[in-house]
């Protein structure tokens, strides 16, 4: 809470020895390398005047764009990986260089040339920040070089160039090959209470917890031999034998055998399924799957199919809405848009989409809860919209999911393991803009809406949701780096062999999941994740939708 305006610090001229005094280097670990830097750079703080601007050094590393201010004492920084002025390269959306004397402007990609000397660098960030640096006093060559470096390193050509690989790889070097080589003294596994659903025991527990006795863990995809995008372990009706599943698999898009998500206490199951690619087989396979699900229902109830592609906006719609939202939140001038704020917010359609998803989830809840039927979420690839809906349904119906660790487990189960294409949707490689879509952010917004309507029903806070959303752009966590578990396994094997990393007992590189919050924050800071109003798991069904703006996130505007 910003209490009492900070006294405006007037810019003081600095001499060279002061400069060196304040050269504080804060680098994540030995895996981070400085690529390029420029001195005498001015970071613009205020929009109108430059009296609050900071002077310092602009540094590009293989992880982040860093600004080391000369004349302001380093503020106590709470983030363990990022300083006050740091931007992870993965968070940079667009690099724009400007020469205002010549009136030139260029958007930079990787491996590009720049024909003019930039006087200004503007970084448009994925988290809605817009950051400006001025090079009026900097050497023209070093300014140009640092801009090109930032542009180049924020467009990695290969996933293995994402900083996470260096970050994790370095752990296996060093003194011993074992896990004792911890980062910041933290166990890479995180001592986690969050189930990752990457082993059959996590699924067994979930089956037991929800009383889904007619469902079993299926292991036919071990080694990813059946489907490239499914996890190694998932849950299917007991009445379907492995042999049947192998047979049906080829009919589904990407061989994705329908996945069990969760059981309602009434015995109704929530299942997600991709389209059947073979039209001739469609009816037969659909019938088999449906009847198997019916058999697993204690009342032998029918199955309701909920077609998500038909009822919900697609990923391009969602992306378009976010771009409009960003336009009105940070790009349009505040004074001009002030009067039209609410109607422009409405016209971005973001809130409308949030509402559509919540409403659809409510309909599914109604089928499960009041009509006592099992529900199949049907989506072409089963990797985007289903993730949102299945999570929302479980959050609404199952108080268990509203504790912090179970919420994390839920994301692990319905997003990470189910193969949400985080790499493509985040567009970490900036290769294909058509695949970029903020589906996960939309989900967090939906959760925030529920959180607002039920302030005592969730163990976590708005801060937690915000931090979780921001972590998508810190590319060191297994959670947001890959399109599916198989891709993670393959890349980490390849990386290990190319760098001759001895993995020891591990089968793949052990990336920390984002749930290992100690990677980013001290235990004291993590207490901000705890909602003091939380009443425990006694609250019942939360549903019904009124929608508010995700203010906490939006309020974080350009600096």
């Amino acid at each position, binding site marked *: *809470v*910003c*209490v*009492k*305006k900070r006294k405006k610090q007037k810019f003081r001229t600095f001499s060279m020895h002061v400069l060196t005094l304040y050269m504080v280097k804060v680098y994540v670990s030995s895996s981070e390398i400085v690529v390029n830097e420029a001195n005498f750079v001015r970071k613009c703080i205020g929009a109108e005047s430059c009296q609050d601007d900071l002077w310092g050094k602009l540094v590009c590393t293989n992880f982040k764009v860093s600004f080391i201010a000369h004349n302001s004492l380093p503020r106590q920084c709470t983030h363990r990986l990022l300083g006050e002025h740091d931007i992870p390269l993965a968070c940079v959306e667009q690099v724009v260089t400007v020469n205002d004397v010549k009136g030139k402007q260029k958007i930079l990609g990787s491996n590009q040339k720049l024909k003019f000397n930039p006087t200004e660098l503007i970084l448009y960030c994925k988290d809605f920040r817009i950051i400006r640096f001025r090079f009026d006093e900097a050497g023209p060559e070093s300014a140009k070089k640092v801009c090109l470096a930032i542009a180049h390193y924020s467009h990695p050509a290969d996933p293995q160039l994402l900083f996470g690989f260096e970050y994790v790889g370095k752990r296996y070097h060093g003194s011993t090959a074992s896990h004792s080589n911890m980062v910041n003294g933290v166990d890479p596994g995180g001592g986690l209470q969050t189930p990752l659903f990457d082993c059959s025991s996590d699924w067994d527990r979930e089956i037991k917890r929800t009383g889904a006795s007619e469902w079993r863990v299926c292991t036919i995809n071990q080694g990813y031999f059946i489907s490239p995008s499914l996890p190694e372990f998932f849950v299917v009706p007991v009445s379907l034998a492995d042999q049947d599943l192998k047979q049906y698999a080829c009919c589904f898009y990407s061989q994705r055998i329908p996945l069990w998500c969760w059981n309602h206490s009434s015995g109704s199951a929530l299942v997600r399924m991709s389209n059947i690619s073979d039209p001739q087989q469609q009816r037969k396979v659909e019938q088999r799957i449906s009847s198997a699900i019916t058999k697993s229902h204690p009342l032998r109830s029918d199955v309701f199919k909920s077609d998500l592609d038909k009822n919900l906006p697609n990923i391009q719609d969602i992306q378009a809405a976010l771009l409009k939202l960003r336009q009105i939140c940070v790009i349009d001038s*505040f004074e001009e848009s*002030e*009067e*039209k*704020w*609410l*109607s422009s*917010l*409405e016209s971005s359609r973001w*809130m*409308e989409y949030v*509402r559509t998803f919540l409403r659809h989830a409510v309909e599914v809840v109604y089928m499960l809860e009041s009509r006592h039927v099992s529900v199949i979420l049907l989506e072409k690839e089963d990797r985007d919209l289903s993730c949102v809906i299945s999570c929302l349904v479980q959050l609404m119906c199952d108080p268990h999911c509203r504790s912090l660790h179970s919420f994390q487990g839920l994301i692990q189960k319905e997003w990470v393991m189910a193969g949400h294409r985080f790499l493509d949707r985040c567009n970490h490689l900036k290769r294909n803009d058509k695949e970029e879509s903020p589906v996960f952010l939309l989900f967090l917004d939906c959760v925030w809406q529920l959180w607002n*309507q*039920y*302030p*005592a*029903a969730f163990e976590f806070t708005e801060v937690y949701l915000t931090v979780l959303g921001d972590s998508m752009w810190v590319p060191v966590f297994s959670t947001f780096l890959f399109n599916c578990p198989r891709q993670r396994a393959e890349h980490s094997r390849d990386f290990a062999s190319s760098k001759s990393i001895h993995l020891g007992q591990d089968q793949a590189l052990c990336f920390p999941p984002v749930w290992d919050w100690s990677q980013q924050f001290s235990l004291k800071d993590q207490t901000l994740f705890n909602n*003091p*109003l939380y*009443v425990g798991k006694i*609250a019942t069904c*939360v549903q*019904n939708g*009124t929608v*508010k703006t995700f*203010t906490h996130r*939006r*309020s974080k505007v350009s600096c």
Partner: protein
Amino acid sequence: MFFCVQVYKDPSKGELPLLPEEHVQDSAKDVTYICPFIGPVRGSLSVTNYRLFFRCTDREPVFGLDLPLGVLSRVEKIGAATSRGDVSYGLACKDMRNLRFVHKEPEDSLKKSVFEVLMKFAFPVSNNMSLFAFEYKQVFPENGWKVYDPLAEYKRQGLPNESWRISKVNDHYELCDSYPAALVVPVTITDEELRRVSSFRAKGRIPVLSWIHPESQAAVVRASQPMVGQNGRRCKEDEKLLQAIMDANAQSHKMFIFDARPSVNAAANKMKGGGYESEDAYQNAELVFLDIHNIHVMRESLRKLKEVVYPNIEDSHWLSNLESTHWLEHIKLILAGALRIADKVESGKTSVVVHCSDGWDRTPQLTSLALIMLDSHYRTIRGFQILLEKEWLSFGHRFQQRVGHGDKNHTDADRSPIFLQFIDCVWQMTRQFPAAFEFNEYFLITILDHLYSCLFGTFLCNSEQQRLKEEVPKHTVSLWSFVNSQLEEFVNPLYVGYPSHVLFPTVGIRHLQLWVTYYIRWNPRMRPQEPVHQRYKELLAKRAELQKRVEELQREAANRTASSSSERAGSPTRSITPVQTFV
């Protein structure tokens, strides 16, 4: 459940709860309430001298309506009786809802319908009866009329001091009948001069001090507009008074005059003899217009808001419809004005004079919000009560006129939701600073409910003088008696105080929200789905428990230190760091 916020009630029993001196006047069976959310509901209706009580028994859960007659602004028969003898009645309420009932006319034409009885008791003032507040004789452990003692409040601010004195010139309300008796003015200005100033300020409302900064001595001064007129009249005593206000603050050689109105309106007031301070006459004073509109614009905006939120909300155009009411824009302008005042006083160390036309609507909105920003005392429950008593009640915000207590003249152009807007602004601040206010949202809603209920005397009459004349404190109960006798209901468990902090809220439209839990609380779909009120109480209990435990441990530690030091005399005494817990 449709029971509204009530004083003493147990909705599960569903029996008509009666307050002391409350009597049933009439009741009828077979009344149909046309609920906009669940459709027609049949039940029985009772009218007392305080409330309307409707109850339907043949449905689960039991459905009821329980509202003080004070919230009614209009009761009217809609259309003629149907062939079956059914008559419709529409009830418009001051608290953002409309109710509709259908009832069979009594066959005996001499007998009055229950709604005719309702009309009589809903508007006692128009029917030469007294408001229920004058009959209600509940006794509470605390006497709320003692909450505000002007001299004690000024003493808290360090007044009188070498620059400011407390004048008795208005002791008998002769100088200004809408001002309080105790006025704080610069020592260098005599009472005689004040009298001359009063003839130059609209309604005699001279510039007097509201608040003084404890360190810089910059003052917040309130007034009404100067009667400049078209000829640009001047008053040398008024000029001297403003100069004296500026001189009382050694930190600054400048002062600001905040005129709450749009400049066009301020200029138009010259035609009617009013106007604003000219720069020639008031040197070193800078005049700033705050662009806040008048009571009529605000009333119209709230009317539009009611149309948008009640009974049904058009989901697909919700935001643009809300925008078209301009309600949040008005809230923004008021908050922005108060922010500028607080900033000038705190950061600029300059004294400010605030006025609008008469100085009893926009002026108290601005001064009281600025005071909440500047002085943490006003963010406590009792401090907030003092603020209302002082800035609103004693300085003559015309509550009777603006609310129209017991008056059936619902089209009266003097009605306006000025006080509601102020409470909305406070709510916006509690959203932005959730730990800075001792009270919770329920406290604010309770105040608004009793603004209309006419159960307590607090918001009756237009001025301090009128309240004394009517002997309101003698014959009625104060709202603060009720509130302060059950404080646990109103305490914000997240409160940590920030005793010396000034709050500067962000006032952009982006940071303002519609106060859904007030304006749309009658819509079951918009209600907080899981009330946190109970949870707040649990947290308070938990905090009290932990605080007790800390004290115990501290005592234990102190005893141990004492005993060990007595055993081994000469050993250095350990100091105990006091532990503070915020749960």
